[in-house]
């Protein structure tokens, strides 16, 4: 796996940063000149992951969210989104479509379903009280 470029950002888990994080990832990914629809998939997946950190990992508190991005060979984008929040007790359950622990906020419970379906690969590592790390890959079609 050859890393052609990389970029890291970290920011506090305030909802105003959801939009900024999408813009940062999409600006970085633009180096691969991705098709618009595929870039939109990445933005949506990043938005879901960052929102999970804000709504769940750092519920009622503010912590740091870290995003590491890499451009890999073969037109591939790697994104790692890491928090040091509450962690996920049951990852399998959390990834079930429509499962949510925040119905009062009208969360649809589709965050992981979107990440899984819009990206090529998704892995979730989590430890209760330590935090969660999400790694996603997307291979862009060449134009």
């Amino acid at each position, binding site marked *: 796996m050859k890393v052609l470029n990389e970029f890291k950002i970290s920011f506090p888990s305030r909802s105003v940063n959801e*939009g900024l994080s999408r813009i940062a990832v999409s600006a970085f990914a633009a180096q691969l000149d991705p098709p618009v629809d595929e870039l939109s*998939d990445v933005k*949506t997946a990043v*938005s879901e992951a960052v929102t999970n950190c804000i709504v769940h990992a750092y519920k009622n508190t503010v912590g740091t969210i870290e995003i590491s991005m890499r451009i890999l060979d073969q037109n591939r984008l790697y994104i790692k989104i890491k928090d040091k929040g509450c962690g996920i007790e049951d990852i399998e359950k959390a990834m079930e479509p429509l499962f949510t622990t925040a119905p009062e906020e009208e969360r649809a419970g*589709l965050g992981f379903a979107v990440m899984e379906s819009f990206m090529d690969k998704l892995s979730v590592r989590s430890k209760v009280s330590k935090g969660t790390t999400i790694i996603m890959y997307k291979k862009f079609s060449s134009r």
Partner: protein
Amino acid sequence: MTTIEGSENMSVKIEHGEDILTAYLSGEIDHHSAKAMREEIDMAAGQAKPKSLILDFSAVGFMDSSGIGLVMGRYKFMRDIGGTVTVQNPSVPIKKVMRLAGLDRIAKFKELQIK
């Protein structure tokens, strides 16, 4: 028409018609912006109790699953008062998110010709 600027990147314009309430959403719908949007729509819909609520997505540039919660919540409200929800002019990527959630099974979809 009333306009609310909930944050720097979104707004809702409400248009009242006979038995119809149209909410023109614009900007980006995410967890950050969705709350102000739904509060605005609920206030208008709660007062007007329309038979039909149209959510217009023509000017929405981005939406994640927070938009699903927004449509589902309004669908439940309209169902309770015996009305319907129509999703109007969503872009292709927005439709992709909506389809993933099966929103096409509960709300009507309508495409208008671009003026």
